[in-house]
């Protein structure tokens, strides 16, 4: 009484895969190959003159000390944003997972910021911390702190990190919460009966069981900080002061879109793409080993 259907059509599996393949080709491989091709060209903004220059754009790029600086900035920025947004979201999710009366309201409020566009989030934070008018900057200044993200590099970095973290917490929160709810209560109760306190239960039972979610979020967050944060940076600091918040992706945007240097910008995005591919590969190769499915 085995119930199985045999599809004899050899084309069918490919046909079923086709929509996804088309989307990947059109929205990833096609633009990526365009970027690679463009990185070998020198073009004016209008595309009137186009000249093949080989690796010249890359040579010019790696001759810029500012480029190495933006790499370092990216490392600092992405580590801070990924670490903070993951840990804060996890904290919030564990709190929301408890049996609270206001839990639904709390959850909804937590998810809201995700609906805010990056640029809007940037403007919001910019105004709250605008040195002389911002509602949060004034108390800071009142306490005697010389809050000045326009000139102080650390202040500017703090500001873009806060805005980017705030924006990402909702997303992480949602996944952590779902992850927490799928952990069988019986396992946790068994731990409790054996006398494990809440903190110990968290680190020895919940956290390992949550690792698939954490791993997934790590990958997504790294991609987020690498690619999706330029809107926030553009609105909050414009990459300043003195390039202190110019991450690699912001430099791609600034040089290409604002500067009209399409070849140089394309070369940067190719480098960025290689880095993110490498990072993701490393994560899957090494970090995933520690994941318990």
């Amino acid at each position: 009484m085995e119930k199985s259907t045999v599809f004899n059509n050899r084309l069918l599996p490919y046909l079923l895969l086709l929509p996804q393949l088309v989307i990947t080709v059109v929205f990833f491989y096609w633009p990526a190959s365009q970027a690679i091709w463009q990185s070998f060209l020198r073009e004016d903004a209008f595309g009137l003159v186009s000249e093949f220059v080989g690796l010249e754009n890359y040579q010019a790029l790696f001759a810029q000390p500012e480029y190495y600086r933006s790499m370092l900035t990216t490392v600092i920025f992405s580590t801070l944003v990924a670490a903070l947004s993951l840990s804060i979201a996890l904290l919030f999710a564990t709190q929301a997972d408890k049996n609270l009366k206001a839990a639904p309201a709390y959850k909804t409020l937590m998810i809201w910021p995700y609906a805010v566009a990056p640029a809007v989030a940037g403007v919001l934070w910019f105004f709250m911390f605008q040195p002389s008018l911002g509602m949060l900057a004034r108390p800071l200044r009142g306490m005697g702190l010389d809050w000045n993200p326009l000139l102080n590099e650390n202040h500017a970095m703090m500001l873009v990190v806060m805005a980017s973290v705030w924006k990402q917490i909702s997303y992480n929160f949602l996944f952590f919460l779902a992850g927490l709810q799928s952990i069988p209560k019986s396992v946790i109760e068994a731990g409790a009966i054996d006398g494990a306190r809440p903190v110990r239960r968290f680190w020895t039972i919940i956290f390992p069981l949550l690792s698939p979610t954490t791993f997934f979020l790590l990958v997504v967050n790294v991609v987020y900080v690498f690619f999706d944060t330029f809107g926030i940076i553009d609105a909050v600091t414009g990459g300043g002061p003195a390039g202190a918040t110019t991450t690699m992706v912001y430099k791609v945007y600034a040089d290409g879109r604002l500067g009209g240097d399409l070849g140089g910008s394309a070369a940067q995005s190719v480098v960025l793409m290689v880095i993110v591919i490498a990072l993701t590969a490393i994560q899957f190769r090494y970090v995933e080993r520690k994941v318990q499915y």
Partner: protein
Amino acid sequence: MAFRQFGPAAAITAALAFATPAHAVTEIQWWHAMTGGNNDIVNKLAEEFNASQSDYKVVPSYKGSYPDTMNAGIAAFRAGNAPHIMQVFEVGTATMMSATGAIKPVYQLMKDAGEPFDPKAYLPTITGYYSTSKGDMLSFPFNSSSTVMWINKDELKKAGVTEIPKTWPEVFEAAKKLKAAGHATCGFSNAWASWVHIEQFSAWHNVPIGTKANGLDGFDTELKFNSPLHVKHLQNLVDLQKDKTYDYGGRTSTNEARFGSGECAIFLTSSGYYATAKGTAKFDFTSAPMPYYPDVAGAPQNSIIGGASLWVMGGKKPEEYKGVAKFFTFLSDTNRQAKLHQESGYLPITKAAYEKSIKDGFYEKNPTLQTPLKELTNKEPTENSRGLRFGNMVQMRDLWSEEIEAALAGKKSAKEALDAAVSRGNAVLRTFEKTAK
């Protein structure tokens, strides 16, 4: 199947599109970046023009900020459907100019269309910015402004500053008095850091920003703004930043509100800030010419403009160009220009409109609006003060500001910062030169 249906459907759509007007009206697309009150002015101008004749219809559309509008226009050109008229901010001038074939020079347009056009009728300090070295006008100036020093008269009086400072040393003194009188966080400040402290500063002191008349005479220009005078000025700002007698106000206009809120009583920014100041400032304010160093021979020279001009895109039909030319003639009309200037605060672009405003007694009631005009026409422009034209200027302004910020934050000396700004800027210029040929 789908394709077979597409044919008739397209034909019907096309028929509907062409059938509606009683007779052929040529549409002229105008892409711009004007918001708020300025947006209303753009729409009103188009309406008036459309009502004044029945052959052409100017259709304005807002395309976002200045860089957004320019990028939208460039992308549209690459896709083969550029607008007829595109508003481009002054720093995009070199990029537009070098795009031979993508643009239709205005002097050519007016000649082809047989419209009366005398380049001498326009204010030379304004058109110089948008003309070739031979004086051929490439784009049509629309909204022009210049840097002025905004003054909070009430606060100056309170601080015991009896006269509006004219020179930089006087500004520094006044700022110290203001700081002592309670302006602890800001003696004076400015918006548009590189525009004010490098570009306008150089022109006003008749020193070069770059060789080849600041790039107007060719793209093989080199930057020169690391002279001892520039270093001295930046060093002064760095010294005053330490105790906030001067407080840096950023690369764009976002901190202009510090003047309106009363925090900064002396603030250098565009004359176009007038409308906002009028709306927000709850004190007696005025504008004054930019300060200068009295020990520099010949200073003050004349200021240069900011703002935007209208570029005509290439590859359109002669009939459409005729409409664009008629629209420009319409905009140049003396009464219209004078009215536009008096209502919006933009500079008038024709000499006649300026003279009419003087004759009308407009400036006696509104002296603030004459300050930029006095600056622009202060002296006959020299090689150093005709304007500037550097490729990839948007990118360049950012890296100049980066270096100014590095100096103000104490990371670099004033000299190191300006040297770096010059050498990094030159690298950008060389890249541009290679693509601009």
